[in-house]
């Protein structure tokens, strides 16, 4: 009995979905208004009359981007190398936290190695690249590219 009811219900669902499909597929076509083409072409002509956008000056920009990445990378490494030990030597005011003094030897010893410095630079460059790719993607979705 239950099985019959279930089969009937599934068949009913299928019929209703078919009916919905017929309704959606049978929608009447809308005719664009008579001035539509003219109005689009006006906008297109306006746009065509504008001067072409200046191309992005990659030749000038690439060295600047590389230089800026190098400076930021170097800054990050310098901050890690010099900033953390200083931070570690800070004495916090609260008595319970004052024992959390970070030893400079623990932090700066490993981080000062050249391979890790290069790693930080690579990380900074990677983040720059990702943000560039993301901005291009967003601009592309927005139809700007």
């Amino acid at each position, binding site marked *: 009995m239950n099985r019959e009811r279930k089969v009937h219900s599934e068949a009913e669902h299928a019929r209703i979905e078919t*009916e*919905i499909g017929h309704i*959606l*597929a049978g929608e009447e076509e809308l005719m664009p208004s008579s001035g*539509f083409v003219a109005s689009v072409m006006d906008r297109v*002509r306006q746009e065509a009359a504008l001067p072409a956008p200046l191309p992005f000056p990659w030749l000038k920009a690439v060295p600047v981007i590389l230089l800026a990445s190098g400076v930021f990378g170097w800054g990050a490494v310098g901050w890690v190398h010099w900033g953390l030990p200083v931070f570690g030597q800070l004495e916090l005011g609260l008595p319970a936290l004052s024992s959390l003094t970070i030893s400079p030897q623990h932090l700066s010893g490993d981080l000062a190695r050249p391979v890790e410095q290069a790693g930080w630079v690579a990380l900074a460059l990677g983040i720059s690249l990702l943000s560039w790719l993301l901005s291009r993607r967003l601009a592309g979705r927005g*139809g700007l590219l």
Partner: protein
Amino acid sequence: MNAAASADNKQADIADIERVLAGDVRAFEGIVRRWQGPLVNMAWRYCRDRGRAEEMAQEAFLRAWRGLRLWRREGSFSTWLFALAANAYRSELKRFPVETLPLAAAPEPAGLATQHIELAAHLSHDAVHRAVLTLPLRYREPVVLFYFHEMDVAAAARTLGMPEGTLKARLSRARALLRQRFPHLQEEQGARKVFTMEKGKEAAQ
């Protein structure tokens, strides 16, 4: 649209695109004339507001104009144009969403008690079309595209840039949501059949 006309349109599109890329702005008018109907109708299905649909279609044509050189010849121009239009409509609706009721609050289709069955059918159809607007965008877009302009699953999936399986699953979910909203549609169809038969008999007499 038959196959021969479709092939002619493809040839005309390619010829116009080449002229536009060579600097002839007027050639774009041919593209607008051929595609104004589909693009306005597609926009209408996204917003169900005629004025806004034409504005959205105009924006889509402008984007097509700007990006025409980005069309890769190996794909169909119509798929490229519909995908571009779908992106344009989606971003427009994100900026200014269509005011809709939640699906559960969408108007019920008129019941069998309605005196004029044709009017009841018309109201039911309108209610179903409006209910599509209340679906979440991820379900609404597959429905809009699948039931539009002779698209099949493959064409709609290409236009939305998603795998066919995902599109099928979303279509199925969308139909289920609509079915839950309109559990009595079948009865109305039955009533329409009876009405049509009666009209046929009257005509025969």
